[in-house]
């Protein structure tokens, strides 16, 4: 078998293999059963005492969300001002400037919401201080927020009837101390040993073979790169992200980072199975997600490995596939796999230039982000999937002649309202944003913005459209990857994507938590032969169909004008 393909398969299998014990461990942590990390207990107690938290206090869904949202607001204010004044703060050996207000707004939100859309370049746009105490800090807490929200939902599903989703502060703290910190530490050490910098020295100057001198940015990057993947954040230390030789030095680190980013999303599915004692449901969800991933991955792999037909027409052989924008040390297959993994799970880190992917790959990447529930981001992926389940439960419940039920609770107007609103939101944000951008480019190309709309697009026609669509899709999916042909560090993009980011993060988290909060408070109805089982293959297929139909209906016209038009024109 092709070694490149073999590498991809091994990477995936390794991820699942590691996620299984991790999932069981996560269950133990949140159930409070004895686990290997119990030595963290005194530290947690200290944190609770200092912060005045009563770990025994239970929260209903409103209190739970209030705690989550208020702490997030606090972090946003903190991050915004530190980024604004970073040049006045220590740990700035390269003398980088403070961020402009619109860029700081975008950056603060982008990292707060686990998106990591970077409208700056890590080498010049931030200092070591902000890299560590804003960027890396937010990468930890945003991932922990996602996990905490999901565990809150688990708590609602675990009991027959309850209004207790657990204590947000306790779950949040434990996500950090028991999961993210220890795993990141171990991962950072592995990366450091493979050549990722981990020191505080400023830029190095080296002399190349040609005799030029080149400045090479450095810094304490290994730790940040570990959490960037573990927490499905994706924001790189360096501008080139994981295509950069210091951020992702070799094929092994490439595999390693691939495993890292998918680890927690899959582990959370397994944890769900054992935490709420519905293993079969968890495996059906895992199966649907995996099939979904394969549906996106296989066309991408095929088109990338076959190379660019336009180049083939020139009579150039492409034995290694479409290599434009890809790193030779990773190859077409691993880059194609990465591009799908990073888009379905909302990491948004890249090891190749997505702008140079084949149009079909671009289509698959965008679909991955639009669906945003095939594994999905840290904690939030399953929350998104839950919304699709609610809609699937409703329609299929009617189809079997019973008021729809999910896990023994009746799904009624209130829950449907929330689920449809959230599904509506992504269509609104992606298409609304792209429409606004297209309108600006067409009707006000010379408008006096910091950068004129006419200058946003480095590519004309369909691809230019894809770039704008991708940017908003990425923002709405809290993904963070971009098609870099777009000039995006300016007022329009910073503010518009900033707003999209914050809405697309919190509403899809509030929605499922509220739904489960309301559902779990309802009377529990034991199942019978007339009850539709949500852990059956049929229902899995139904959910898959709902995902496909909802997204196809929402996005088909836009995709037809972007990547589909581009793909068909290339044939």
């Amino acid at each position, binding site marked *: 078998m092709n070694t490149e393909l073999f590498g991809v398969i091994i990477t995936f299998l390794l991820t699942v293999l590691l996620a299984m014990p991790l999932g069981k461990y996560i269950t133990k942590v949140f159930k409070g059963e004895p686990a290997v990390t119990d030595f963290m207990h005194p530290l947690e107690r200290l944190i609770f005492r200092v912060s005045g938290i009563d770990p025994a206090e239970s929260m209903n869904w409103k209190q739970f969300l209030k705690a989550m949202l208020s702490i997030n607001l606090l972090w946003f204010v903190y991050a915004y001002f530190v980024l604004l004044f970073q040049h006045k703060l220590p740990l700035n050996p390269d003398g980088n400037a403070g961020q402009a207000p619109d860029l700081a707004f975008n950056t603060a939100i982008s990292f707060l919401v686990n998106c990591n859309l970077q409208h700056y370049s890590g080498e010049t746009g931030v200092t070591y201080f902000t890299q560590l105490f804003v960027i890396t800090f937010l990468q930890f807490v945003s991932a922990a927020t996602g996990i905490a929200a999901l565990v809150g939902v688990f708590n609602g599903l675990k009991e027959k009837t309850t209004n207790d989703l657990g204590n947000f502060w306790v779950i949040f703290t434990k996500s950090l101390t028991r999961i993210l910190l220890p795993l990141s530490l171990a991962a950072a050490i592995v990366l450091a040993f493979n050549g990722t910098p981990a020191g505080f020295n400023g830029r190095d100057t080296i002399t190349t073979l040609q005799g030029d001198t080149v400045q090479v940015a450095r810094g304490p990057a290994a730790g940040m790169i570990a959490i960037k993947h573990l927490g499905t954040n994706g924001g790189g230390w360096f501008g080139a992200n994981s295509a950069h030789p210091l951020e992702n030095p070799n094929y092994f680190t490439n595999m390693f980072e691939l495993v890292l980013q998918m680890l927690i999303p899959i582990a959370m599915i397994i944890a769900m199975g054992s935490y709420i004692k519905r293993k079969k449901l968890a495996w059906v969800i895992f199966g649907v997600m995996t099939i979904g991933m394969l549906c996106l991955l296989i066309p991408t792999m095929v088109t990338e490995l076959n190379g660019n037909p336009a180049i083939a027409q020139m009579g150039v052989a492409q034995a290694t596939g479409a290599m434009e924008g890809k790193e030779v040390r990773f190859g077409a297959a691993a880059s194609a796999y990465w591009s799908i993994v990073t888009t379905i799970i909302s990491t948004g880190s890249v090891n190749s230039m997505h702008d140079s992917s084949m149009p079909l790959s671009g289509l698959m990447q965008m679909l991955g982000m639009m669906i945003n529930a095939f594994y999905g981001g840290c904690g939030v992926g399953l929350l998104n999937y839950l919304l699709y389940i609610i809609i699937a439960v409703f329609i299929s419940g009617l189809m079997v002649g019973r008021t*729809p039920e999910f896990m023994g609770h009746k799904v009624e107007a209130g829950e449907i309202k929330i689920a*449809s609103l959230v599904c*509506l939101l992504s269509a609104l944000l992606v298409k609304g944003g792209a429409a606004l951008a297209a309108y600006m480019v*067409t009707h006000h190309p010379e408008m006096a913005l910091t950068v004129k709309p006419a200058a946003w697009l480095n590519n004309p026609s369909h691809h230019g459209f894809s770039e704008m669509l991708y940017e908003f899709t990425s923002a709405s999916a809290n993904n963070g990857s971009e098609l870099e042909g777009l000039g995006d560090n300016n007022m329009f993009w910073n503010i518009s994507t900033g707003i999209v980011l914050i809405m697309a993060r919190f509403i899809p988290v509030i929605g499922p938590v509220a739904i489960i909060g309301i559902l779990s408070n309802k009377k529990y109805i034991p199942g019978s*032969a007339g009850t539709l089982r949500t852990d059956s293959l049929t229902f899995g297929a139904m959910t898959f169909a709902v995902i496909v139909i909802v997204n196809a*209906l929402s996005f088909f016209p836009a995709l*037809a*004008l972007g990547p589909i038009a581009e793909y068909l*024109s290339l044939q």
Partner: protein
Amino acid sequence: MLKVKRETKLFEPALVHTAIEQSFIKFNPRLMVRNPVMFTVALGTLVMLAVVMWQMITHDSTQGALWYNVVVFAILFLTVLFANFAEALAEARGKAQAESLRKTREETPAKKVVSPGDIFVKEIKLLPSSQLRLGDRFVCEANDVIPMDGEIIEGIATIDESAITGESAPVIREAGGDRSSVTGGTKVLSDRIVVQVTTRPGETFLDKMIALVEGASRQKTPNEIALTILLAAFTLIFIIVCVTLKPFADYANTPITIASFISLFVCLIPTTIGGLLSAIGIAGMDRALRANVISKSGKAVETAGDIDVLLLDKTGTITIGNRKATHFYPAKHVDEQSFIDLAVYSSLADDTPEGRSIVELAAKRSNAHASLEQFRQQHLSVPLTFVKFTAETRSSGVDLPNGTKIRKGAFDAIRNMALDAGKGMPAEVEEKVKQIAGDGGTPLVVAVNNEIKGVIGLQDIIKPGIQERFERLRKMGVKTVMVTGDNMLTAKYIAGKAGVDDFIAEAKPEDKMNYIRKEQASGKLVAMMGDGTNDAPALAQADVGVAMNSGTQAAKEAGNMVDLDNDPTKLIEVVEIGKQLLITRGTLTTFSIANDVAKYFAIVPALFVASIPALQHLNVMGLKSQGSAILSAIIFNAIIIPLLIPLALKGVAYKPIGAGALLRRNLLIYGVGGVIIPFAGIKLIDMLLGTFM
């Protein structure tokens, strides 16, 4: 038994006529706004009308050809009209059904009893039924039509209820007890009764039901509300799709006409289910009415589909009214034929159903050719002295001319008689008695001159086919519970034989109540049927309480449905009607949304192929031209509504095959079918249009 057919044809000309009239009246915006999906289509139609008028005045050609816009306008108008027609037809059918019941009770003369306070003596005054008020009393004699619903307070009468139930056999109604209720429109056949009016005029169950069907008081059910929200969300998504398409098209340098935008929008929003939604709901109530069940709300019908537990009375539901003789067990040294003869003699005087069944069985055993009457006469050929059943002897029988005393009775009564006379108790007979009792039967022992000769076994007869019905219910996930006054042993045996899941033996009224409470506490929905006043609390407590029309007023008030046929197995039908209602909504929603895939493939390439020729590849149906592609899509979208009216009104068939299998089946038919059918339909319409365009 004669059953009046209550089937009306789906498109009964008279009803269609009313429905067409109504479908224009329903364009009233205040009515339209109740249905968000169709309301947006109506708005789109208005916009097209404005475009057409603008073009006629200014001869502006940027919006495409005038004739084309007129056609689009006409199709959109038809789309709304079809949806209105579906609703109107469902209403008309429901109303016709209710009216046919109501007609029976219009303006009949009533013999009102004027109370002694008014005038000096009790006096009868003749007045039209419409002037009767709550609490009034009236008299009905033989051949009178009962003018109003009420409760008999004096007398007993046989009543012909065929006008309501379609059942020609007369029934007996009497004051006091659980069979004291009479319905307006039914006819007294014999005797005289005094009835007290129990409802205000215009507030009978039938009046309520008609109001529900007419829409004035029609409340959306919880599932209908949730579905409307989901459909509204889909509509909003498509508003976003269409609005954002304008800047996208500008970017791609493609002008899109208003007609195309509106066509795309109308095609995409779930008009099929949106147009049929209320028709489906009304049809559900109508189906209940056709089954002779009056539902007090649409919600009750819907809840019936969710029922987890069914409480059924044994007598009349599971077993045929009375016990019947099934076996003769002679004692040792008694040959069977002579024992059968003894059994017949002992029962000749016994005119109870049990006694008659013994003679019947004996006739069948002894002489297959002779009729029952001949058989009886044979035995009556000798002069007999009948000994009637008395409470003291607890036995009955005959004395033959030669002085032989033949007696039949309960086991302990006959045993005591035999022991007193110094005769023994044969062990094998005692054995048999125990066995019969253990099998849920009733043993009757026969003795001649105090000598025990054998035992007759009587059994409850389980209704034929009832096991299959319970099996069907089990597959639906409904648990059946038998309620009976029998002892534990008998109840258990019959429960096992009939295949019910649970039973309540030696049941008192409060036991039903407690059972319902217990099931409800564990989250289950319970349905029950009842007729007596002491059933009323349980009927009120149950999630679906079906009161028999013959039952007391209290029971009818407490339940949320009334069964005009007084048929205890009706509950099973009601559950299926409820399920069918939900399934019809679910499958048509799926079908409607699945249709959009084909419509996208018709319209999106048509819109953009001029500026992006590569998109021609998406025109998988090979539609002729841009114009015909869009027209085909909206024509398909419009005509699918009337095509599905029969399905919406009749309901999608419910198959009790378990939830998983049912989902697979419906997903395959309405989901996959919903994707494929419009591809074929649109292509076909395009080919037809091709001959004109």
